[in-house]
Each structure stands twice: as C-alpha cells, then as structure tokens.
C-alpha cells in the first residue's frame, strides 16, 4: 500500500515565469510591517494605506501565479522555488524555499484576498475618532497595521514554506502576531490576560508540533516536504502514529480544538478586525492546513486519522453547545468558529474521503465568518462598542447594509440551500456518514445535530440583534449617553459587501463540476466518494437542512416570539449554566493544569529557598562565623605572633624528629 501511495506523490518542478516572483508574496507585507514599525509616528498619516496596499499587491501576485498554475497540466502544478539555503549545520540543511502547489495557492488567495478586505475594513474600523480617551488614535492605527501586516506575513510563510521548519517559522510568527493583536488594547487587563492565555495555550500545541518535527528529522534526516513524503513509508507504524498525534496536538493549539479550545473565545479581546482575521483567513486555519499538507503521513495510519476525526467531532459539538448560551455577539461567533473548525478537522480526519472537503469548508467559512465578524464589528461600531446582544434589538432598520451582508453570512453559515455553507458542510456530513461501522453513525449523527445547534444559535443571534424590540432605546451607554445606531462608512461596508457576495457564491462556484476538489488533486490526492456507510449520500442534505430548519424554528419559538430580558436570567437549567461557563473548560484547565502547576511551582520555590539556598547560605554563614572567631587570634601583640611562630617551629622540628626516629 505504501508503494502505491508513494507513486501518487506529484512530481516537483522548478518554478519559473510569474511563479519566480512568489517571494514577493510574503516580502511585500513583511516590508510594510517593517516600514510601519521603523518609521513610527512619521507613518501615522498614511501607514494604514501602506498596509492595505502591500496585501493588495500580494493578492495580485498570488492571483497571477494562480492563473499561471491553472494553465499548466495537473501533474505539473506542484512547483518549488528555492530562495536560499537557510540553515546548514552539520547534516542539517534547510532551504528557505517556497512550495507553490494547488493547496498553498488556494491558501494564498484566501489569506491575501479576504485578509486584504479585512485590512480595508480596518482602515475605517480603527479610524481615530478623536474623542476623549483616544489621544493616540492615529498612532494606534499605525501600530495595528504594522502588526496586521506581520500577521499576514507569518501566515503566508506558514502556507508557502516547502519544509517543516519554514512551517514552524510561520507557525510561531502567527502566534507572536496574534499575541500582539489580541493584547492590542494594552490598557485593558482583560486583553493582556487573553493575549497571554492565547500565547500559552498555543505553546502547548507548538511543543507537539516541534516534537513531531524532531521525530521526522531523527528518523528521516530531512525536513523537506518532498523528501519526507517520499520516504515516510520507511518508518514503523508506531512512529507514524506518534508523529500524527503530535502534529494533531499542534493543530489543536493553533486551531482552538479540544482540549486546547479555551483561548479562542478569549481572543475576542482584540479589535474586531483581528477576530475576523484570526477566525476566517488565518491562524485557526493553520491546523487544518497542517493536517491537509501532511496528508501522505496521515494516509498511512488509520488510528491517527481516527483520533483527528474524534477531536473534530468533540470540538464541533462543544463549540455549538456553548455558542447557544452566550450573549456576547463576538463570543457566539467565536464559538461558532470553534465549531466550524471542528467540522474541518473532522473532514481532514476522514482521510482521502475528506481532505479536500475540509479545505472546501475552510474557504467558504473564510468568507462567511469574515463577513459575520465584520458585520459584528459594524454593529459594535454603531452601538458604542457594546457586545451584549441583550442590549441590541431591531437594528435592521438602522443599518441596512450591515443587516443584509450579515444576513447573507448567516444563511451561508447555517447551510441554507445554495448558499456557501450548504455545499461545504453537507459534503462533510455526507462524508462522515459514509464512514464504515459505528464511526459513520457517530460522526455523521453528531455533525448533523451540531448543524441544528448552529442554526439555533445563529438564528438567536440574528433575532436578538436585528429584530424585535429596540431595547437600546431604554438604555444608556456605559458612560451615560443614548445609543445612536448608524450605518458604518463606505470603507467598512464595501469589504462587507464583497465578502457577502463571496459567502453567497463561493460554495456554488467551487462545488460546480467539483472545481475545487479536482484542483486540489495534485496536493491531496483523489477524493474518495463515500460508498455504503451509515446513510446514503443522497439523503444527507435533506437530513441536514431538516435539522437546521428545526434549529431555526426552535430559536424562533424561544427567542423570536418572546421579549428578551435585558438582564441575563440567572435561574436557568443546568445545560445553559454549564455552557455559560464554557462547559467548564477553564475550570478543568485550572484544576488539571494550572493548580498542580502552581503547587509544583510553590514546592520548588520552597525547596529552592529552604533547600538550595539553605545549603549555600548555610555554608557561607558557617565560614563567616568561624572566621569571625578565628580573627580574634590576630591580637596585634607582636609577642603572641612570635609565640605562634615558635610553636610552629617546635612543631616542625618535632615532626621531623618523629619521622626520623619513629
């Protein structure tokens, strides 16, 4: 079987033509970031436009390379562009090279396309409003764009690298940029905490990725994708399983998957464009990319794939359940992301039957989740940075463009027929049902149920925000003003409109004639059609749409028809209480990791203070004390010195005599 798989690997050609400019893809945003960081306040006036321009330039180059690649025969589409030898130490030789293949190009277009639109939106969202408490608005925006560009640079390096070390470089770069951006509002302790939490939980995953890379290096002696994938069959089954599980740990950290999902909702502390960028185009998709990229490794271990799929299923259910309970519009969307990434991880965990579907859902999700976050940001912009949906209501009339674009994203997310999510999510659920034995029932069943929950919480969000009573009329802002909801400026609405168009049509375009699936064949192999399994493929869309409709109906009955209390009801059933506490994820982390860690640290401090320090300080005190006493011998009387000299002399003579005559 290994031989067959090895033969399916694509031939790698050298990149020529437009593709030789591929280094500009990441060099442009990197240069933008550098200029903004280095010039400082001098760039305040125009820095944001530089940030947008560099991403736009990357997008244009990416598009040109994409078109050039599309003109090649499928077996020639995998190309590499070695730039220079990066690390050469002993037997370790790592190229700084780019891999331009269908998979990475799809990511480049998503990152620079959607990312560029988010940049444009951020020009308006981060615009200095000149009011009190915002004296450094222009500087903050410039800093924001410097970090934003850094984020995109790192993500592009992550997907473009042709070896695991470059992947790791981008991986850590994304982690750093997300840390900076989540903690962007430096004066808020909650933002600083959230940034630290994101960074620390990412580290846990990063350790897994690093060890997986070490394992590959010690066993194969190379980290280039091409060589690794060619020779991965030489390894024993146990090693491959270990590598896949460790890679999954890395993916869990970066993509907010169970058990490392707790940082993602807290990441909402950053400005909303950051949430959109993290959740749609970059960062969280890195985990899915990692597993899809290393598919030749995952192809060799069924157990490894099963673990991936289980993690995906658990996460998508957790995300959907918690999403139902929150009142914070951004947190609901955040848990929605956790859930949707769960679908993608489930898809890539299904192996050859799902890799391409995971990427498909990633793309459509990139559009509609970006649209939803931008819409949420627009609502916050209108509502004085309020995020509590209980204080919204009836906003549809006041911000029609936001309402329509958000609504289109909503329909795409719940999988309304012929919108983007309908194609990608149903395909994943269909593939899940197509698994043999219990897996088909469990994976498919849970995914379908979670689709119903998705419809419920998203409908609840729509109803509470855009429909019903205008609860904000009775309320004041935190600093005592009335709410004056208004539509956002064009620089924010235009990206929202473009992305909404993507949310509507990306699914149908990419699904027609299996466009995306066929395009990805050189990178991910042929998509296996599910056969047999729990439920036949044809019935799945009806089932999913039925469940989603049920979710919408329940949301309408429970939220839409009843008035929404402004204060959160505290007397609620157990599931709601648990969901409001993130299903106790933080408590579990606290009990299992944080507290034992604290105890260990305290014990070590005690040991250090009393044990190590005691030993060192004790020795010093002993020497000091005894020399203090010995010092008294120095009386200053010459006679006593003479006596000790005499005594010494006598001793020497006595010793000599003793040796001589003994």
């Amino acid at each position, binding site marked *: 079987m290994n031989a067959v798989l090895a033969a399916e690997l694509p031939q790698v050609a050298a990149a020529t033509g437009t593709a030789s400019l591929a280094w500009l893809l990441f060099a442009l945003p990197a240069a933008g970031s550098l200029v903004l960081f280095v010039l400082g306040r001098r760039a305040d006036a125009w820095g944001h436009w530089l940030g947008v321009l560099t991403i736009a330039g990357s997008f244009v180059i990416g598009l040109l390379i994409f078109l050039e690649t599309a003109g090649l025969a499928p077996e020639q589409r995998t190309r590499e562009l070695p730039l220079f030898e990066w690390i050469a130490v002993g037997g370790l030789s790592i190229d700084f090279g780019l891999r331009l293949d269908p998979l990475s190009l799809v990511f480049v277009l998503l990152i620079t396309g959607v990312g560029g639109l988010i940049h444009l939106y951020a020009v308006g969202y981060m615009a200095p409003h000149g009011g009190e408490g915002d004296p450094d608005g222009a500087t903050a925006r410039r800093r924001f764009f410097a970090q934003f560009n850094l984020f995109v640079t790192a993500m592009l390096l992550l997907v473009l690298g042709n070896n695991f070390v470059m992947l790791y470089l981008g991986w850590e770069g994304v982690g750093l940029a997300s840390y900076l951006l989540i903690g962007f509002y430096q004066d808020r302790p909650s933002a600083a905490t959230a940034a630290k939490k994101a960074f620390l939980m990412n580290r846990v995953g990063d350790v897994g990725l690093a060890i997986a890379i070490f394992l590959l290096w010690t066993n194969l002696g190379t980290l280039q994708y091409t060589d690794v994938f060619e020779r991965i069959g030489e390894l024993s089954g146990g090693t491959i399983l270990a590598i896949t599980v460790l890679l999954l740990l890395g993916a869990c950290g970066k993509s907010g998957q169970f058990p490392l999902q707790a940082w993602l909702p807290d990441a909402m502390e950053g400005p909303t464009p950051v949430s959109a960028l993290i959740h749609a185009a970059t960062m969280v998709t890195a985990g899915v990319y990692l597993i899809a990229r290393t598919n030749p490794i995952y192809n060799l271990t069924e157990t490894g794939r099963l673990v991936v799929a289980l993690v995906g299923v658990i996460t998508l259910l957790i995300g959907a359940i918690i999403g139902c309970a929150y009142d914070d519009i951004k947190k609901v969307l955040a848990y929605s992301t956790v859930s949707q990434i769960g679908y993608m991880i489930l898809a890539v965990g299904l192996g050859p039957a799902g890799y391409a579907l995971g990427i498909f859902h990633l793309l459509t999700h990139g559009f509609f989740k970006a649209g939803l976050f931008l819409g949420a940001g627009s609502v916050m912009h209108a509502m004085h940075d309020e995020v509590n949906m209980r204080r919204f209501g009836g906003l549809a009339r006041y911000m029609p463009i936001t309402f329509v674009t958000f609504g289109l994203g909503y329909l795409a997310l719940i999988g309304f027929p012929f919108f983007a999510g309908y194609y990608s999510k149903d395909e994943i659920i269909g593939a899940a049902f197509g698994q043999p034995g219990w897996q088909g029932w469990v994976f498919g069943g849970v995914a379908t149920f979670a689709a119903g929950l998705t419809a419920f919480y998203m409908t609840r969000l729509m109803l509470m925000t855009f429909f019903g009573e205008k609860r904000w009329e009775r309320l004041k802002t935190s600093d005592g003003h009335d709410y004056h909801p208004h539509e956002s400026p064009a620089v924010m609405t235009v990206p929202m409109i473009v992305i909404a168009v993507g949310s509507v049509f990306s699914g149908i375009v990419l699904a027609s004639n299996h466009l995306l699936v066929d395009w990805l064949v050189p990178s991910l192999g042929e998509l296996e059609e599910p056969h047999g399994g729990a439920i036949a493929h044809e019935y799945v869309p009806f089932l999913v749409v039925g469940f989603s409709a049920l979710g919408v109906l329940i949301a309408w009955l429970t939220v839409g028809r009843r008035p929404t209390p402004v204060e959160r009801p505290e007397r609620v059933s157990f599931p709601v209480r648990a969901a409001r506490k993130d299903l106790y994820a933080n408590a579990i982390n606290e009990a299992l990791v944080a507290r034992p860690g604290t105890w260990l640290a305290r014990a070590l401090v005690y040991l250090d203070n009393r044990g190590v320090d005691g030993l060192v300080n004790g020795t010093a005190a002993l020497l000091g004390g005894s020399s203090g006493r010995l*010092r*008294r011998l*120095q*009386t*200053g*009387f*010459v*006679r006593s010195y*003479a*006596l000790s000299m*005499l005594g010494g002399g006598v001793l020497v003579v006595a010793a000599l005599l003793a040796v001589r005559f003994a």
Partner: protein
Amino acid sequence: MTPTYYLLLSALLFSIGAVGVLVRRNAIVVFMCIELMLNAVNLSLVTFARINGALDGQVMAFFVMVVAAAEVVVGLAIIMSIFRTRRTASIDDANLLKY
C-alpha cells in the same frame, strides 16, 4: 673539649633569647634577644663547621652577621620612629594592626 658543650651553650643562648622575645616588652630588649638568638645560631653553625671539618658553616655565619647588621639598621630605625610618635618603646602599645 667536645663540641657538645658548644652546642649546649648555643641551645641555652637561643632559649634565653626566645624567652626574652616572648616575655619582655621593651622593644630594645626584645631586639637584643633577637640578636642573642642569631648569635646562638652562629655559634652552632661554627661548631658544626668545626665538627665536619668544612668551611660551609663559617661562611653561613658571615651571612647571618651581615643580615643581623642590616636588620639592626632597619629595626632600630623602626623603633626610633615608633618611639618618636608614641613616646614609648613598649611593643604592646604598637598593636594597631589587629582584627
């Protein structure tokens, strides 16, 4: 005449000198006792030279005399300067160099 008596005398003189250094407080007396010890050693050196029939010991004695003379020069100068500042020649009063 056996050399033993010379050696005994030398030992006696050395002991007197040593005890004098240890028990006396006047710097001049201590100094004289040191000279006594040096000369006791000189005596024994000469005696051993005689016993062995070689001149090495006598040569050594000359060296000791030279050293003693030089020492007297330096030592007396020190004692003089101490006496000038402190108005005393007691060595127990010059005890500033201590713990």
